[in-house]
Every structure is written in structure tokens, then in C-alpha cells.
């Protein structure tokens, strides 16, 4: 029944462009526009249900309004319409209670089956772990790799690009480090809330490769809620395999500064700290290293390696003036490993005229193979 209804309502492209098909595509266009087509079968099923409900609404609304306007003109005071009429009519009242109920049974079951399919994962699903944190998403693939690419969306600086394969179910396992977030992929027509005290899951199966879909945070989470975004990029199965092989840890060819820059995006540092000198949610890294930093509550501290280490692992201990009384930053203890910290410090040094240290030689800690200190390991 559901499939039949789906066919009835999902504007079929083949066949003659009869009036129903035209009306159907007009409805689709009105609500979703040309830019917001879904990229999954379940997304199309959701749209079909949406359009079905939209027709139910449109028809019943039109019926009510036509009757209302007709009555108002026909029975306007001073006209001839007024007559005594029944105060109630049981069969009529039963009919208009039961018929809507039947329509609602259809809508309920249709929505129910789509919901179950959106949440249930199959055994072959590709699992990707996602951690939400004010105000960025960090991503970890099954092989421990993390995204290399970050993309600017409008004013959002460093949105991670999450590459996913088409034709295969992707299961996202999500949790949060601080407050509640919500992982929302409009193109897949689904979202799930992300909690600090549990895992939640969602699935989707992308159909068309070569697409980039925005991901938004849909649960209000503070100042940069509207800038907490990501990109879902769909690729073919072969491309995906190649991609996975490439992303285990930072590129072995990188030096410590390049790795440090990569980590600064990977761990979301740049969501709050600029390297341009502009103040943001956190102090800028430009000319920070090697300078005395004014502290909240008086006094100063020299921004040396230990200052940086402490600020990352215990952000509440010394707070830069103007960012208190409590720091917005949460601890990265257990998330940023020591080697990664070294690289980050090297990167920060290059942003200061007192840095004065040349990048350490180009070497992955354990030879040419993907480094064992892959950043993702530290996430556990």
C-alpha cells in the first residue's frame, strides 16, 4: 500500500505530463525548490509522504475555506439566507470524525516505516564516528583516519568534509563533548540529537556520487550554533577505498608545522582561535607565543610551551584577560596526544615573531608507514 501511495504521489518523470503529474511537480517545486532534491531513496520516500500530506492539507483546507467564504456571502446579515437549521447531526458528525481518523492511520504508518528505516542499520554498514563540540564536528573513520579537507561555507571557516560512499549504508555513531547538538543532513532528510552522556545513531544511503551536501547543527548550542557545519561529500565505492587509505593520520610527507596546522583544524582549535590577530571566542594565536599574556584576575604569564600545554589540557587554570570568568574552552586532555601537542606548538611558533624556531625535520615518528599516533586513537 505504501509503495502504491508512494508511486501515486512521487511525481513520476516518465509517462505523459498529464495534469496530475504537473500538479505533483509543482507541489514538489514549491516546497523543496530546485536546489534541495534528496540524495537517498529514504529521502525521496520522506518527500513523497510530505507531498501526500501536503495534498491532504491542501484539499481539506480548500474545502473548509470555500465553504466558509460561501456561507459568509450567502448568509450575510440582511440577506434571505437565515433559516432555522439543525443544531446537530449525528451521522454527519461521526463521518467527519472517522474519515480524518482513517487518513491519519495511513500517515502514521507511512511515517513509522520511514522512521524505522532511517534509524535501523544493516550489517554491512560503513560506520563513521562523530563527536560534536562547541562549535565543530570531529570525524573518525573505521580505520582511524580523519578528514583532511576543510571547506569554507560562507562565513564558516573550517567545516570538515566528510567523504561517504554511495550505494552503501552509512551509519553515524554520534556523541557530544559538552552540550546537546543535533546532526542534520537536509539532503538525507534526517537528523539526530547528539548527547554528552550517550551515543546516538543515524543511517543513510547516498545514491548519487559527486555531490556535496551541507550538515547543520539543529539543536541550539550557543554563540556559534549557526556556524557549526560540515560537508557530506559523496563518492563512488572505489574512490572511497582510495580515500580511506590516504587519510590515516597526517600525510607522512608533512613536517611538524604542517601537521600542527592540520591538527588545529582537525581538533577545531580554529573555530575559536584565529591566526590573523582578530579576537574571537578565544584569543588569537598571532604573536601569542613568547609574549607575556595578561590574565583574568590580574597578573601575566609568559606564553611558553608549558603555558600552551596547560591551556589545552586545563583551560580553566589560567584564563586570558577578557575571556573569563570561566573559559568557554573544555579540556582536550585525552584528545590531543603529546606528539600532536608538539606539532601544534611548532605551528603556533610560526605565527609569532618570537617563535624563532625552524620547523623540525620532516619525519613521521615511526617511519614511512602511517604513523601509529594517528590522531583518532587519542579520541578513545
Amino acid at each position, binding site marked *: 500500500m505504501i509503495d502504491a501511495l508512494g508511486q501515486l504521489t512521487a511525481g513520476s518523470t516518465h509517462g505523459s505530463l498529464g495534469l496530475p503529474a504537473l500538479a505533483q511537480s509543482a507541489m514538489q517545486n514549491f516546497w*523543496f*525548490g530546485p536546489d534541495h532534491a534528496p540524495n537517498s531513496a529514504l529521502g525521496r520516500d520522506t518527500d513523497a509522504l510530505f507531498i501526500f500530506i501536503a495534498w491532504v492539507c491542501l484539499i481539506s483546507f480548500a474545502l473548509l475555506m470555500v465553504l466558509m467564504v460561501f456561507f459568509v456571502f450567502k448568509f450575510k446579515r440582511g440577506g434571505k439566507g437565515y433559516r432555522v437549521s439543525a443544531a446537530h447531526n449525528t451521522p454527519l458528525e461521526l463521518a467527519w470524525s472517522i474519515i480524518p481518523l482513517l487518513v491519519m492511520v495511513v500517515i502514521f504508518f507511512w511515517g513509522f516505516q520511514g*522512521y524505522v528505516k532511517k534509524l535501523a542499520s544493516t550489517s554491512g554498514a560503513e560506520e563513521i564516528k562523530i563527536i560534536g563540540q562547541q562549535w565543530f564536528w570531529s570525524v573518525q573513520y573505521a580505520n582511524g583516519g580523519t578528514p583532511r579537507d576543510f571547506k569554507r561555507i560562507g562565513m564558516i571557516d573550517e567545516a570538515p568534509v566528510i567523504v561517504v560512499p554511495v550505494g552503501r549504508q552509512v551509519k553515524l555513531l554520534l556523541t557530544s563533548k559538552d552540550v546537546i547538538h543535533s546532526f542534520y543532513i537536509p539532503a538525507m532528510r534526517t537528523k539526530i540529537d547528539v548527547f554528552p552522556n550517550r551515543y546516538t545513531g543515524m543511517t543513510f544511503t547516498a545514491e548519487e556520487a559527486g555531490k556535496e551536501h551541507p550538515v547543520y547543527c539543529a539543536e541550539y548550542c550557543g*554563540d556559534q550554533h549557526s556556524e557549526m557545519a560540515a560537508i557530506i561529500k559523496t563518492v563512488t565505492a572505489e574512490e572511497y577505498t582510495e580515500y580511506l587509505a590516504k587519510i590515516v593520520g597526517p600525510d607522512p610527507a608533512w613536517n611538524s608545522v604542517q601537521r600542527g596546522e592540520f591538527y588545529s583544524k582537525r581538533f577545531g582549535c580554529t573555530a575559536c582561535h584565529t591566526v590573523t590577530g*582578530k579576537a574571537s571566542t578565544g584569543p588569537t594565536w598571532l604573536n601569542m607565543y613568547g609574549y607575556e599574556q595578561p590574565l583574568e584576575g590580574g597578573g601575566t604569564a609568559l606564553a611558553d610551551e608549558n603555558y600552551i600545554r596547560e591551556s589545552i589540557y586545563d583551560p580553566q587554570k589560567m584564563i586570558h584577560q577578557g575571556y573569563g570568568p570561566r573559559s568557554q574552552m573544555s579540556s582536550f586532555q585525552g584528545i590531543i596526544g603529546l606528539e600532536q601537542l608538539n606539532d601544534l606548538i611548532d605551528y603556533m611558533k610560526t605565527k609569532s615573531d618570537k617563535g624563532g624556531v625552524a620547523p623540525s625535520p620532516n619525519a613521521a615518528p615511526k617511519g614511512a608507514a602511517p604513523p601509529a599516533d594517528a590522531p583518532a586513537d587519542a579520541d578513545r
Partner: protein
Amino acid sequence: MATPHTHDQHASHGHGHGGYDPHGSYLAAKGGMLTTIRDWATTIDHKKIGVMYLVAILFMFFLGGMFALAIRAEMAVPTTLQNGVIHGQLFQSGDDIAKGNNIYNRVFSLHGIIMVFLVIVPSVPASLGNFFLPLLIGAKDVAFPRLNLASWYIYLTGSVFAVIALVMGGVDTGWTFYVPYSTMTEEGHLKVVWMILAAFILGFSSIFTGLNFVVTVHKLRAPGMGWFDMPLFVWGIYATSIIQVLATPVIGITLLLLIFERLFNIGVFDPRMGGDPVLFQHFFWFYSHPVVYVMILPGMAIISEIIAVHSRKQIFGYRAVAFSSLAIAGIAFIVWGHHLFTSQGEVASVIFSALTFLVAIPTAVKVFNWITTLFRGSIALTTPMLYALGFLFTFSIGGLTGLFLGALSTDLHLHDTYFIVAHFHYVMMGGTIIAFIGGIHHWWPKMFGKMYNELGGKIGFWLVFVGFNLTFFPQFILGTQGMPRRYASYDIVNNPGFTFIHQLSTAGSGILALGMFVHLFVFLHSLVMGRKAAANPWGGLTFEWTHASSPPIEHNFEHEPVCTHGPYDYDDIVPANTKPGEFVLPTPSPAGARHH
């Protein structure tokens, strides 16, 4: 009142106090300005308390509306960063987008908190309910007049707390106070606690009013008035009061726990201390969903009155309308989980989805009954009637769009987007506020003894109606295309069409605001130079029209009214086949003219 009458017991007390006449209008001054102020401040007259509520609520509506306009102004232009320079951010603060966002977050939080806790929840019951519930059932006052005055002062105290929090800088928690954000934001600052306390205190005002009304309806109905002789406004307020009494304590406990959480870190909700934030959501919506019906049932109740009186018709299916109020009040308690489709367990979501569709039936029944009532009526397109018809339009959209959100798979897409924003504004504003404004016009002549300017009222209606739909209909489309709510800016790279849709909405909000100011002007004009209203300008059959003068005397009625016919028995009173011109309605007489 020159007509001779037998004194009732209260009549003799007032004589001889500086021209004070107990048979004069309740609005009549009893002395100099100080005396008048003291009289109003200590009054236990439900009518004066109702008027004070009305003024306070309309002021708060103005305040919340200003925040709404600020939201729309910010959304009219997307914030963009070009060469490191911020463009299009209304609340720009220095060169940091996040700081500007933070101001926006406070603005939408304050809009929500003010509109929900200070305007819509008390709106109809506390103002029109207070004034008209006793009048409609033929009582002299509510059952506990002093408790009623206490409710008013508690409301005032809650408002003062909210204003203090606002003056301290406002909060950025959203009106829902979701943890752990609400326990973590601005840790150490007391203003969040002030704001939560405000909502906590306002809850008591709500409980007291509800309790008062339940007892009043049970105990103080006029002789001869059975349950099914009650006007439908009374049924609606009665159902509302039951929800207020049963649900509000839950939010009281929840908010108290939240305050303890912030001040003493007790760890009930905060996951950092082993608490569960979803538990808060369940507690919160266990109150806040029923309270949606606290907001809409009184609006529906007003619509029943307006449609019956202004089309001079027996309400079609009176009992169905009355029982549907009770059914809605009952089902209201078992559907809170539909706010948690993206956060609670899957089985719970399925059950709550099924239950949610149940509430659509009594709601639809009401709309069908109202429209059928128009059939063969004698319809006068007065301002209140225009508002009632406008309500049928906007509320139908609000109700029908609920179907998209009750269905699980579509809700996963639409949850927390602008679709939700549009949906609940169509219900809360297109339902409650539209009905409220209609109700104020309907009962204005009775409350203040003056007619308002009908043309002015109609101009106001059309501006509000067009402005409202232009503001909120485009937001449905923003939602289906993926615009999340509570966003200080939006992604125009992936959604190039959003700017135009937002601008339509902003333009609508300007028209809407203009309409509201027209109404304000019409009301002030009426108070100063409106022509005197007759006792029964609309030809209504309920006690406030047939037995009370305009404005009513202090004790409402010269004689205790007796119920001799149903509230809408136009057919019995106006004989069948009477030509329209020969309508003989019950004498629109001053109080006491009907003898029994």
C-alpha cells in the same frame, strides 16, 4: 441606574462615600486619584483584576513583539564575511561574529520567554477569563476573590523578576532552558537564575487562577444553569483551568531542580555529574505540551462565542464542541513525547506519534462545527467576526501542518527547522493571539462601555491578517529546504534562495506590527471619544449581554440572573421563518429588565 429596584444586601454599604454608587459602573472613580489607585491596587473585583491583567499582558506583548521585529530585522540580510570584514550583521559587536550572534541569541530567547510565560499562557484566561467567566455564568465574582488578587500580584512579581534578568543583560538559554546549555552558559551569573525564578513564580499565578476558575464553574453557576447550558467560553476556560492545575506543578519542580543544578550542582540533569539531559526534556514537555492547550483552548473558546453571536446561530454540535475541549485537555497529557522524536528512544517515539494523531480529531471536529454553524446563519462581518473567520484560516493551517510533524519520517527532517517555527506561530499567534484580539473587540463595549471604531478595527484586522501570513508562511518553505531554527545567520552558499524568503517574512512582520499599532490607536480612540455602547450591541443571549449593563456595575447584576434558555437558543427566541428585518431579539436592556 434610575430604575427602581429592591436593594440587595450589598447595596446599602456603599452609600454616602463621596458619590460612590454601588449601582454605577465598576469603572467609576470612588474619590480622588490616590483613592482610585488604592482602590485598584487592593480590589478584589474580578473585572478590575481582569482589566489590570489585560493592560499588563498587552504591554508585555508589545515588549515581546519588539524583540520579534529585531529577530526579523537580523534575518533580513545574511551575515557574510568578505575580506575579513563582517557584512549584514545587525547586532554586530566589534569584529567578532560570535559576539554579535550572542546578542541575537539573547533576543530570540527573550522573545520566547516573554511571549510564552508572560503573554500567551496568561493572555485569555487571566484577562478576558477573569472578566467574563463570572459574568457568563451569572456570578458576582470568582469563588476566591482574594486568591484572584494574589494571582495578579504573583504575576506582577514574576514579571519584575523577568525584567530584572532582562536588565542584567538577558539570557541566551532559549525559552526551553534545555540542559546542559542552560546550566553551563554564563556560569556564575545570577541572571539565568532570576529568569528561571520568574518562570517558576509565574507558574503559581497560573495555578491559582486555574484553581479559582474550576471552583467558580462548579459552585457559582446561576440557578437553572446546568453543565450543558454553559456558554462554550466557560467550557473552554474550564478545560484550560484543569490543565493549569494539573500540569503547572511539574514545571515548578523542574525549574526548581534546574536552579539547584545551577547553584548547587546537584547533578540531576547535568551529564558532567551523572545527570540526564533527556530527563529534563521529558519533565519540561510534560508541562509545556499541555500548556500548548492552555494557550489554544481559551482561543477556541472565544471563537465559539464570536461565531455564535455574530451569526446569530445555535453552535452546531454544542456538545461535541464542549466535549472536544475536555478530550483535548485529556490527550494533551499523553503526547509530550512528540517534541523528542530526535532525542528519546525509538519505541517511545512510535507510541507518541500514534497518540499525537489522536489530538487532531477533536481539533478538526471543532473547526468543522464552527464552519457548519455559519450555515443558514445571519452573519455580520464585524471586526470580531472577521477575526473569528481569520482564526479559522490561520488556525486550520497551524493544525494541518501539525500532520507533517506528527508523522515520524517527515519530522526527522523538519524537527528544529523553520517549519516548526512557522507551525507553532500559526497555532500560538494565528490561533491564540488572533482569537484574543477578536475577543477584545467582541467584549470591548462590555468592558469599557464604549464602542470602538468599526472601520479602524477592520483596517487593523486586514493588516494583521495579511502581515501575519506573509511573515510566517514563507518560513514553512525555509524549513522544508533545511533552515534550522535559532540560527543567527544562514548559509547562502548552499541555499541561495533563503535571503529572498527571509526578506518576505521580514516585510510581513512590518505589516503585522503596523496592524497592531492601528488596533492600539483604535482602542485608545474609543476610550477617549468612543460613543457609548448599548448593553447588548451584538444581540447576544448570554448573561453578560442580557443582564448586565455596559460597563457592568460593581456587583455585575442588579438581580441574580436565572438561566431560562441555552446560551445560543436563537432559534427558540427568534421564531422560525421570521424575516431578517423582523428580528426580535431579547431586549438589549440594562440589567434587571428581565423579570422572573
